[in-house]
């Protein structure tokens, strides 16, 4: 066995057996997943390598034309055998044709195993990339080509204005806000320009949806979110209702030369704040997080806790709001809660829980951190 434990991403890319596995033509389907299980520290390197190998797969320009069935191959081989003299007498033998195709559906254990980590890596890559391919270019270019057909809608009224874009995405434009968008979106990306506030329900498509607001860009493929970017405000904000969006600055901070994060990935109930003076993006939570995971039976019902350990409740909240909650589990395990929670907001619930056990909570980087001395 090769020295896989010391492999870097490059080594994996070079490794034929690894590439075969990623490309789904490996003879040893289970080797790499098993290896990963044994060496979880290789996860990141393997994922990077996998990404590159995946991107390098040649497309089939005309899939139908280029699809070759096993039957067709067999026919070709039979024709060949028939055309050769000796082929006439030869019997078609099992070893040649007996291979049954294995199940086409491949599982990608690496993905289910570590989806979150992949996302981290991808986002890292995205910001890395944004240094070299500033997103502004993309925008400027499409602005130029689409300038003739850019439609502008403003909302001078005091009521929200509902718009439907060419891709079926829905926008609710707040009062005193303005949205510009091409009458027809380009094939590569859907780009809109916002001044003011709007909430978006984006139709999921492969081409990304970009909301440009001054120095901030919000990138998304299909999700619900609110962007607030009034010229008069000192801050821009993006709040995510569902799905996932990426927020970044239109111009990477080149002067600093560092690889500091100038983009964020937000999930449901998280928000990004862009401070215009500081040119800084930071992550926080939306003002009123909404339940995203709701068991049908639980809707609107009281939830009663009877001598329930605090960690159990926090985990339940984490699950239903999709917001990571950090706490010292052993320390809080002895804190028992007896309470009935109804329609309180997340923050009210946290207030009640924390007061009961003399703990406190704060919002740090889009997560909730609960700290307390614990209970006896």
């Amino acid at each position, binding site marked *: 066995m090769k020295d896989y434990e010391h492999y870097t*991403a*490059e*080594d994996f*890319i*070079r490794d*034929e057996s690894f*590439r*075969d596995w*990623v*490309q789904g*033509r*490996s*003879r040893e389907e289970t080797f790499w997943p098993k290896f990963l299980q044994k060496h979880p520290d290789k996860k990141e390197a393997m994922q*990077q390598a996998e*990404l*590159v190998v*995946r*991107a*390098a*797969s*040649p*497309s089939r*320009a005309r899939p139908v034309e*280029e699809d*070759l069935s096993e039957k067709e*191959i067999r026919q*070709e*081989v039979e*024709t*060949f055998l028939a*055309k*050769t003299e000796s*082929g006439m007498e030869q019997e078609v*033998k099992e*070893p*040649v*044709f007996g*291979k049954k195709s294995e199940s*086409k559906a491949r599982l*990608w254990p690496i*993905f289910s195993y570590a*989806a979150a980590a*992949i*996302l981290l890596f*991808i*986002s890292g*890559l*995205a910001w*890395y*990339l944004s240094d*070299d*391919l500033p997103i502004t270019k993309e925008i400027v270019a499409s602005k130029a080509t689409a300038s003739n057909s850019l439609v502008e809608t403003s909302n001078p009224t005091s009521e929200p204005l509902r718009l439907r874009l060419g891709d079926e995405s829905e926008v609710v434009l707040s009062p005193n806000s303005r949205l510009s968008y091409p009458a027809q979106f380009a094939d590569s990306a859907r780009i809109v320009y916002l001044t003011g506030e709007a909430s978006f329900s984006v139709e999921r498509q*492969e081409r990304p949806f970009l909301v440009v607001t001054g120095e901030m860009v919000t*990138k998304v*493929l*299909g*999700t619900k979110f609110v962007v607030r970017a009034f010229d008069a405000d000192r801050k821009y904000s993006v709040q995510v209702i569902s799905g*996932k969006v*990426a927020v970044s600055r239109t111009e990477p901070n080149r002067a600093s030369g560092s690889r500091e994060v100038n983009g964020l*990935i937000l999930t449901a109930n998280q928000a990004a704040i862009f401070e215009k003076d500081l040119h800084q993006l930071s992550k926080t939570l939306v003002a009123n997080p909404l339940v995203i995971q709701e068991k049908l039976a639980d809707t609107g019902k009281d939830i009663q806790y009877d001598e329930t350990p605090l960690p159990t409740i926090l985990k339940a909240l984490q699950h239903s709001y999709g917001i990571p909650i950090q706490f010292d589990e052993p320390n809080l395990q002895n804190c028992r809660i007896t309470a009935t929670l109804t329609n309180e907001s997340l923050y009210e619930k946290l207030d009640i829980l924390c007061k009961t056990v003399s703990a406190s909570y704060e919002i740090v980087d889009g997560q909730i951190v609960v700290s307390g001395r614990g209970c006896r």
Partner: protein
Amino acid sequence: MSGRLPTEEAQRFWREYRAGDINALATLMERFYPDLFNWGMRLHNEREFVKDCIQEIFLSLWKVQETIAPVDNVRSYLLVVLKSRILRELSKKENKLYESLTEEYAVSVEFSADLRLIEEEHEVYQLRKLEQVMNQLPPRQKELIYLRFHQNLSFEQIAEVMQLGRQSVYNLLQKSLGSLRRHWVAVVLLLVGGQGIF
């Protein structure tokens, strides 16, 4: 898919074919058919034409069975043979000189990121981006990447298939590196990965 035939097994079938076993050659044909077909379609996007060419190269191989030499790598040898067959047929068809075609043949390689089972939106987006950058490369550089990553050929074998000298392939690689380094670090990683094995 039954998987690509490992080099050693292919060598064994090649020996058996040279010893006069038609079934060994048929096995090679069957097992390498997808690779050959895919490569053929890059050179000329016409199904039946490509299938005919594959049929013919195996028929010729059987004709020369008694005199054929051992080869280092069966698959890259077959790719070379198929390429010259296709170019020859094209030169007849398009009434061009074979020599001029070997210089200017067009390989159509478009990269299309493998998105199966990718659910994360940003991953999809990133892969699309990477794909875009790679598709902007000049054709010869794309051919190199195709042969390296899709056909899994070594540097030597790529030189053979592309009918270039070792040095030219190096130069080509350096060029790709240069243009990609400006675009995307991950792609550089990919090509450096390719270089390291050579």
